[in-house]
């Protein structure tokens, strides 16, 4: 990588992103429109400015993370167009949904390599488990990125770029963040309490090291629930959102010489989630007219270890290399017990491993083989071995635990062909060899065409397979009334996406403007669904059968003038599901819209930034089957109501920028549950449900202190 250039930009971010500039450094120009010069690495041969990137990379920079006081990914992504965050109140997890596809289709990377979780490497990630305290920026790319990032990068990827240097010899930054959860807050068992401290030191010109410790104590959302000491079986015991407590320890060591960079990153993450059962066995004793209520509770403990060693640089004064080695594991253990609520006694305590993934991983990119500057070739490999474990209780498995190892051995190559100043092309291909599945292929073709007057046109075509999940492969639920089976012969699903972006940059008087119109189409075929393979007796099996199509238009705009920054965008999305698995279905497109706008205003005199973020999510539709009174299956259009997220914050620096205070409110429109009629009415569920989406309007205060010397 071009470390010099990168350093310069990191510096820029440090200075303007989080305003650590205790001493004014005159050599760095004070930029007020850094968005226009943002640098990205996702999908690039070398760190590139956003303008030069062949991919359309969206950046959430440190400034935005700080303005939203984002502690984890789930705190900030809900302001992003096309992305929805789907919280699961009963597991405490939050997954990402992009173009209507869930977290299985989406890959999360840290410094270009996929991040493990207990259900996969890169995909199925719980966003609340991704701490942002050492993050420089977040890069989001929509579309299938199989050539660059392999399997499961179907709807898109997030690449989280961590900070790897500091301008200060010593840096000590503690912070505390106090946050209400809805209107719930106290010092004991309500609200969210975050404490963190970061230490950084430049040992010499070449060696930098840092360490971060963060505790995030989320006390859960009580709502109408009555907590763990509630005695009655009327559905009120427990929490609306599960309480969880997280500890993150991270450390980074970076060594830099001319044409050689090395970093080692370590992370330990620990999370404890308490699941208090809603169901109470009251154990009423008529003899004494008393109760001895008992509940079956579970405490989940997740631990993640992350090691990443990366070397990059240049050899033979020509070839760029970037090689990563990584070992990662995440394990979720559960302590299941019965709890006598009156006497606060645990009994029948059982500890066991619930789910885990362990992965050895390596990736290498090599580029710049040709002396000619116009064109370039990149070749690379990505190999991993993932050992997975799923206990029999984590899904509908037979009574045995599932233990499998999946090896993936990919090679890829791409070429950047600069045809002229205006036109460049980048074709690429990847072969995915696997220990368990047939060999897969991914291809990509990107083209960039620079038009006159700052107009620019890009087209990106990409593919990526999605590997079947454990649930789809190994489910086994067979008894006298049921027969539901996984299918170990499933093939990966095939995702393809095509994007066209038209962009225009301009400066009118003092206004810096950037406007972009994107159109896209996405197709996933061989979608895996649970289908009826036999009517009598009724048997279900997971099968490659369905097709998913989506297309849409996104219009985004940025404007900067003096101390004001405004972003606004709109997206229009149509989704069509061809459900071969259903007897009567419809594959008509269903459409939805999302709008977002955010604005910030800097008041230099007061060292204060005021900002507001608004995202409107239009109603979402889905076809559902319902039986009418004659027993006929009818197709109805189910609807999830529209809602908006609004956050507003004020950040002010004191004491020569040493102390920073951020005061804000999230979810100002007080969104909690949404009426949803997209879930089919069956014997086991009602036709209309209320989805828990948020926990209502919350307020936070973050105080950060920088000791830099």
């Amino acid at each position, binding site marked *: 990588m071009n470390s010099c250039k990168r350093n310069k930009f990191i510096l820029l971010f440090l200075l303007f992103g989080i305003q650590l500039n205790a001493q004014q450094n005159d050599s760095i120009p004070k930029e007020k429109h850094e968005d226009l010069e943002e640098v990205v690495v996702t999908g690039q041969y070398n760190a590139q400015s956003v303008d030069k990137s062949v991919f359309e990379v969206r950046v959430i920079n440190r400034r935005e993370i700080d303005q939203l006081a984002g502690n984890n990914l789930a705190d900030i992504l809900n302001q992003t167009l096309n992305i929805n965050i789907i919280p699961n109140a009963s597991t405490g997890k939050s997954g990402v949904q992009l173009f209507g596809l869930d977290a299985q289709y989406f890959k999360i990377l840290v410094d270009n390599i996929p991040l493990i979780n207990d259900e996969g490497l890169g995909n199925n990630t719980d966003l609340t488990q991704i701490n942002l305290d050492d993050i420089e920026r977040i890069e989001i790319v929509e579309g299938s990125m199989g050539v660059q990032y392999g399997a499961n990068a179907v709807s898109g990827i997030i690449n989280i770029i961590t900070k790897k240097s500091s301008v200060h010899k010593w840096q000590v930054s503690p912070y505390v963040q106090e946050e209400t959860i809805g209107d719930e807050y106290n010092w004991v068992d309500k609200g969210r309490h975050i404490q963190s401290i970061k230490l950084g030191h430049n040992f010499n010109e070449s060696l930098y090291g840092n360490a971060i410790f963060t505790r995030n104590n989320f006390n859960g959302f009580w709502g109408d629930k009555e907590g763990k000491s509630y005695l009655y079986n009327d559905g009120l015991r427990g929490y609306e959102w599960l309480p969880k407590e997280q500890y993150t320890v991270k450390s980074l060591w970076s060594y830099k010489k001319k044409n050689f960079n090395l970093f080692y990153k370590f992370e330990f993450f620990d999370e404890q989630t308490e699941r208090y059962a809603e169901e109470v066995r009251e154990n009423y004793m008529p003899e004494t007219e008393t109760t001895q209520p008992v509940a079956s509770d579970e405490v989940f403990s997740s631990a993640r270890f992350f090691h990443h060693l990366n070397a990059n640089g240049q050899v033979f004064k020509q070839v760029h290399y970037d090689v990563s080695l990584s070992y990662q594991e995440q394990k979720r253990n559960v302590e299941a017990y019965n709890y006598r609520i009156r006497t606060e006694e645990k009994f029948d305590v059982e500890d066991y491993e619930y789910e885990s993934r362990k992965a050895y991983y390596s990736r290498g990119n090599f580029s710049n083989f040709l002396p000619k500057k116009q064109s370039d070739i990149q070749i690379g490999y990505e190999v991993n071995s993932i050992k997975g474990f799923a206990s029999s209780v984590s899904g509908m498995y037979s009574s045995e635990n599932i233990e499998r190892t999946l090896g993936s051995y990919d090679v890829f190559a791409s070429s950047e062909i600069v045809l002229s100043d205006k036109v460049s092309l980048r074709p690429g291909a990847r072969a995915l060899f696997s220990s368990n599945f047939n060999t897969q292929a991914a291809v990509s073709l990107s083209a960039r065409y620079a038009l006159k007057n700052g107009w620019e046109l890009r087209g990106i075509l990409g593919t990526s397979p999605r590997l079947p999940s454990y649930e789809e492969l190994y489910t086994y639920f067979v008894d*006298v009334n049921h027969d539901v089976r996984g299918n170990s012969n499933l093939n990966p699903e095939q995702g393809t996406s095509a994007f066209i972006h038209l962009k225009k940059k301009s400066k009118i008087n003092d206004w810096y403007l950037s406007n972009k119109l994107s159109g896209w189409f996405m197709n996933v075929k061989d979608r895996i669904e649970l289908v009826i393979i036999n009517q009598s007796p009724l048997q279900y099996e997971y099968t490659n059968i369905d097709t998913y199509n989506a297309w849409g238009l996104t219009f985004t705009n940025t404007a900067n003038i003096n101390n004001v920054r405004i972003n606004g965008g709109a997206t229009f999305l149509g989704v069509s599901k061809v459900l071969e698995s259903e007897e009567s279905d419809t594959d008509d497109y269903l459409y939805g819209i999302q709008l977002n706008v955010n604005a910030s205003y800097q008041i230099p005199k007061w060292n204060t930034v005021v900002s507001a973020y608004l995202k409107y999510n239009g109603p979402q539709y889905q076809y559902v089957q319902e039986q009418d009174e004659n027993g006929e299956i009818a197709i109805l259009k189910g609807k999830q109501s529209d809602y908006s997220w609004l956050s507003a914050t004020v950040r002010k620096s004191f004491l020569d920028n040493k102390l920073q205070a951020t005061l804000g409110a999230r979810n100002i429109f007080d969104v909690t549950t949404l009426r949803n009629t997209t879930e089919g009415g069956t014997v086991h569920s009602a036709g209309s449900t209320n989805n828990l989406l948020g926990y209502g309007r919350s307020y936070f205060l973050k105080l950060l202190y920088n000791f830099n010397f």
Partner: protein
Amino acid sequence: MKKIYILLFITTLIFGCEENDDVPAQPFVAAFEKLSVNLSTITEDSEIAIVFSEEAFGSGEIIVQVSSGEAVYGEDYATIPATESNQIIIPFSEGDDQTSFTFQPLMYPYTIDDNNTSITFEIIGINYSGYSNIQGYTSTILSFETSLGAVISPEVGGPNEGDQVFIDLSTEEVTSAQRDSWDLGFYGGDEFRVKINGSIYMAAAELESTDIDAVSLADVEEIQSSVAVGTFDPNNEAYIDDPSGAISGTAINEISATDADNKVYLINMGYYIGTETPAAGSVAIAGEHRGWKKVRILQTSDSYILQYADIDATTHSEVTIAKNDAYNFSFFSLEDETVVTVEPEKTNWDISFTVFTNIIDGAGSYGYSDFVITNVVGGVTAYEMSTDDVSYADFSFENIDEINLSDDQRIIGADWRDVFSGGVYNDRFYVLKDVEGNYYKIKMLALLSESGERGYPEFEYQLIN
């Protein structure tokens, strides 16, 4: 220095306090284990148990008032500890969760003159250092009368629910039989009817042939997958007995006096009792499949003639089973080739806990665990009450509405429990009329054990008078 202070200030904010939960208190209660005891069951010195709501955290004593009408203390009966001014004082110690006193039936052996004896013990005081109250079963009556009610935990065998349990409410008597110990039940009443064992998901299909030896596997292969429970095919209702319990609805047609009308039946033998231990709260009802048989049943005077064989056999066995009017059915095991005892005599049980083959409208037969049937063949009827109309506690003789009494055996059925939460619906209870004309109200208390395992039901019932 200032920096250090600020750092210290911030770091002191870091750790919060410990959680602090307040659980609402309930009183310490000592109460009789039983509402009534039938004196005929007391033939020697017997303990009368007093149960506590919780382990006592200190010592104390319970004061019981005795009233015995005609019966004379010291002559007809006595207690240990002895009474003093018609009171017994029973001490208990820290850590006890129950206590008892001894009842001595001095009048035993009982004569016809003792029939009106009624001795009542009533708790009138609890001396205890903590918060206590007198409530619940505050008195117990020893007499020869019908039971006033009880709390019963039928032992159906945990999550495999391996046993059928029969309960006679008026005597509190409980009997049980292993679910797969029988295959066919031969009706003891007027008609010639044979039922199959729905508790192991058996199914029966009439074949064309009247020659049992001529039927081979090839003849039935095509229909075998349909002749089963839980296929989600509404047509499979023909292969099971009418789940209402109506004797006219058996899968096997009425046995004709004309032999030529009695066809051979294909018998799906259902499943052995499951042996797996499922996750807490779930059941493992069905084990291995028990295979296939063929049967043909004829009648002669007051007996049934059962011909039976393995499905592919070319010879068969034959056994004569006499009708027995004292029982609803005479039971036969095709596996053990013998008549077995399953149900008590037909007047000696009111409800049964059993696995059951029911029908879901539109989906055909479906296997149910935790099912409760009423003895409708024996003449027991029942209906369900909603607590919206009147509470279980308030329901009295005036509330009984005869017209609601149903002869469908599924009145309690499976609707008393919520399999998803593992709980019991508190919004309903049941009214039952037994063959002696007693009315009982029944309230289900539990589906799971304290540890959350399935197959540990519990219910309370009380005589309505």
